């Protein structure tokens, strides 16, 4: 133990091996000894290393030194602060040291994992540690800010994940605003016929949940609605929701359905029926829609377009039709938000060599789901486009738009199982021969692979290879009038031409076209693929970097139904945890104005997007509202008088860190 240097706080430096993650590329013992020798003059009185600093034993090491050596500052050189800052600040706090007097140095993510020369890496680790030692000496003890949590919750997206989340929160006794863009909740799941691997009827298991959500007194269901603005912060978000005009008075409508019976205008249903079927200009997407109220599709309504008709109005028994209805804007206060905005389907037309849109008997997976559905356009009959002919042979192509660097690199995870489900349905209902064209079979979940076996046993033919082309250009007589699937069978290493009557494209999932905008609206970011980004991909998959904003379901990446449901529930659990704490603790990283130094120049007045900065005309100075301040520090860096200071990242701290980092130079 070297002696403490006068007027420097007593600092302890703890360097982690992280097993061999760090020590294999950074000479940890060397760093430990160096810190004791060279940083002694900077206040370092103890320097230790340990295999796993984050282990309870590692933490106790720190706590012990704080108590016994009277450490006033702690520096932990280990992994990224985003992983363990809380851990080590917690340890300090337990030992009676203000948590904000402890800092981490990332010598794993920023050193050992990314460099290849041990000498250089060790040197860099030292310089980073020196910087943080200088910085931490300037740290001030801080107290967390507490803000009350509004118990209301906003759930965006009425698919199965959002429904699940809404129900969990509502059933716990707290109010939920469930916002859905479409006229009914249900999402993609409502379009499916069967679900793999159990082959449950999708509607049968979904509808009860929809009804529950629609009837739960704690849930305000806002379909045909969109969120247009979000302000505030965790605990106190202010959300504006646009309720698009339905032209149907929900108070009066009984959902009897006379209006759509009477409506003279049929429209191809691109959404629910995937373009295979028709709906009316006034409609509910499907029979079990929740809520039951229809909407009038303005661009297709004869009255709105031609000024005459009003058939629906005439026949409506309750005078619920209201052509003068306007969009409404609701303002709601919520404490937390769950985003379950789902996914878009890959546009099969983009893969031109598979002929979708050109070759009539090439279908997408969603078209096929509707075709199989008893309430669907064909009443559950599997036929070619003509609506009559039953296919003799069907080819199912996997990974359409997925695992393909021309479209999406990622695996959509559900297509294999979906394709197997299709094979089974085709066999069951038509007895046709089925070919599965796959790259790899991915059936890695509970009783998925068993289902694969079952489909194998049913006699489905599996061809391993990426399909090059689907064509109707016959070369041999037996190919005439057929669709020929050109594929290299990689198992036998041969090019094969397989004639089939029907081709099903197992299309993958894509982020919502407007996911980026949604992200901006709620202040969260998207991954390079465009999916919402988790706070941590492993340890915190349903939180985001923005306090109070949670994500669930396919909005975070391709998932099957159980995955989406569990995430919905998990997100709800997080929200409930926050609500039950009644108040949320915020990082005390805030800006404040020294009013003696502020000249009222108003340079900073245009800088705060959270309107935390306001000018006091009578005093001729500017003030910052700590509750609104998010701690970005932009105004601190902007003040020409140096009158604004920021906790946690003060000039003194950063100046010192720069000096430390450059100490050796």
């Amino acid at each position: 133990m070297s002696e403490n240097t006068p007027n420097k706080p007593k600092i302890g430096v703890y360097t982690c091996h992280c097993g061999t993650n760090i020590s294999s590329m950074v000479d940890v013992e060397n760093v430990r000894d160096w810190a004791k020798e060279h940083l002694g003059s900077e206040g370092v009185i103890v320097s230790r290393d340990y295999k796993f600093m984050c282990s309870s034993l590692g933490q106790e090491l720190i706590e012990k030194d704080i108590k016994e050596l009277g450490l006033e500052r702690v520096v932990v050189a280990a992994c990224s602060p985003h992983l363990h800052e809380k851990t080590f600040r917690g340890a300090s706090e337990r030992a009676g040291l203000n948590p904000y007097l402890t800092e981490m140095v990332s010598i794993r993510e920023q050193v050992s994992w990314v460099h290849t020369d041990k000498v250089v890496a060790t040197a860099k680790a030292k310089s980073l540690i020196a910087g943080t030692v200088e910085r931490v000496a300037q740290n001030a003890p801080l107290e967390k800010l507490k803000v009350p949590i509004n118990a209301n919750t906003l759930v965006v997206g009425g698919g199965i994940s959002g429904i699940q989340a809404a129900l969990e929160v509502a059933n716990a006794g707290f109010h939920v605003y469930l916002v859905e863009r479409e006229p009914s909740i249900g999402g993609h799941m409502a379009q499916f016929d069967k679900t793999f691997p159990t082959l449950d009827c999708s509607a049968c298991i979904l509808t009860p949940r929809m009804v529950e959500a629609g009837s739960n007194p704690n849930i305000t269901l806002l379909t045909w609605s969109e969120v247009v603005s979000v302000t505030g912060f965790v605990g106190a978000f202010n959300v504006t929701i646009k309720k698009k005009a339905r032209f149907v008075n929900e108070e009066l409508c009984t959902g009897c359905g006379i209006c759509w019976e009477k409506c003279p205008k049929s429209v191809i249903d691109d959404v629910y029926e995937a373009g295979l079927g028709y709906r009316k200009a006034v409609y509910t997407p499907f029979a079990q829609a929740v809520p039951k109220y229809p909407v009038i599709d303005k661009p297709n309504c004869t009255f709105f377009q031609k000024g005459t008709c009003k058939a629906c109005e005439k026949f409506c028994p309750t005078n619920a039709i209201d052509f003068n209805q306007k969009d409404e804007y609701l303002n709601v206060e919520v404490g937390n938000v769950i985003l379950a905005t789902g996914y878009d389907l890959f546009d099969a037309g983009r893969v031109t060599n598979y002929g979708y849109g050109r070759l009539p008997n090439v279908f997408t997976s969603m078209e096929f789901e509707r075709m199989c559905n008893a309430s669907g356009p064909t009443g559950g009959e599997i036929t070619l486009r003509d609506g009559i002919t039953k296919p003799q042979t069907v080819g199912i192509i996997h990974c359409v738009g997925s695992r393909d660097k021309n479209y999406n690199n990622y695996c959509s995870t559900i297509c294999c199982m979906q394709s197997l489900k299709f094979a089974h349905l085709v066999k069951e209902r038509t007895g046709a021969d089925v070919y599965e064209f796959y790259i790899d079979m991915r059936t890695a979940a509970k009783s998925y692979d068993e289902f694969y076996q079952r489909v194998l046993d049913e006699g489905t033919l599996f061809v391993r290879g990426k399909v090059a082309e689907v064509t109707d250009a016959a070369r041999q007589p037996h190919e005439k009038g057929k669709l020929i699937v050109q594929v290299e069978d990689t198992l036998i290493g041969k090019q094969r031409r397989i004639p089939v009557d029907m081709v099903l494209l197992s299309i993958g999932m894509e982020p919502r076209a407007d996911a980026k905008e949604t992200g901006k609206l709620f202040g969260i970011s998207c991954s390079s693929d465009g999916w919402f980004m988790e706070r941590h991909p492993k340890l915190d998959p349903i939180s985001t970097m923005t306090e109070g904003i949670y994500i669930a379901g396919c909005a975070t990446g391709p998932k099957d139904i159980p995955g989406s449901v569990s995430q919905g529930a998990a997100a709800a659990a997080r929200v409930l945890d926050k609500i039950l704490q009644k108040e949320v603790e915020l990082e005390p990283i805030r800006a404040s104005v020294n009013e003696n130094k502020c000249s009222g120049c108003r340079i900073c007045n245009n800088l705060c997007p959270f309107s935390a900065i306001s000018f006091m005309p009578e005093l001729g100075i500017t003030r910052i509202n700590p509750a609104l301040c998010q701690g970005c520090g932009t105004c601190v860096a902007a003040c020409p008088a140096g009158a604004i200071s920021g906790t946690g990242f003060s000039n003194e701290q950063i100046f010192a860190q720069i000096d430390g980092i450059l100490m050796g130079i």
Partner: protein
Amino acid sequence: MSEQFEPVIVGFTCNWCSYRAADTAGTARVKYAPNVRLIRLMCSGRLDPTFVMKALAGGADGVLITGCHPGDCHYIEQNYKALRRFLLLRRTLAGLGVEPGRIKLIWASAAEGLKLAHEINQFVEEVRALGPLNWPKWNDQPAEIDAVKEVA
């Protein structure tokens, strides 16, 4: 390797995007040049031109500033403010003979570990090409105290 000039670069990263991009790069074991030492700020908007000057005057050969992509800022639009400062700072430093190439502002989202690594490698090469800056350590007072005796 040993005889070639190894620039010392101080990097200022925002907590939400680029610092996490560094984490992402690490987790993915992406290898990149060891010359950059990162200092975490909450936001690129926190970047005070003083930091850059202090780094250069303190011996750094270059300064890297990284933030979220325009429009992607965790604090909505503060990275634009960083951009404005950066552009004016670069002009000001040019007047002091600091080549514009020694300070660079790049955008990297939390997901772009690869991009960050690539940008770092590229910037290190650019600064290497410019050569050392070696800003003098102004030996004020203390060093000149002896002069007193000489005068006396």
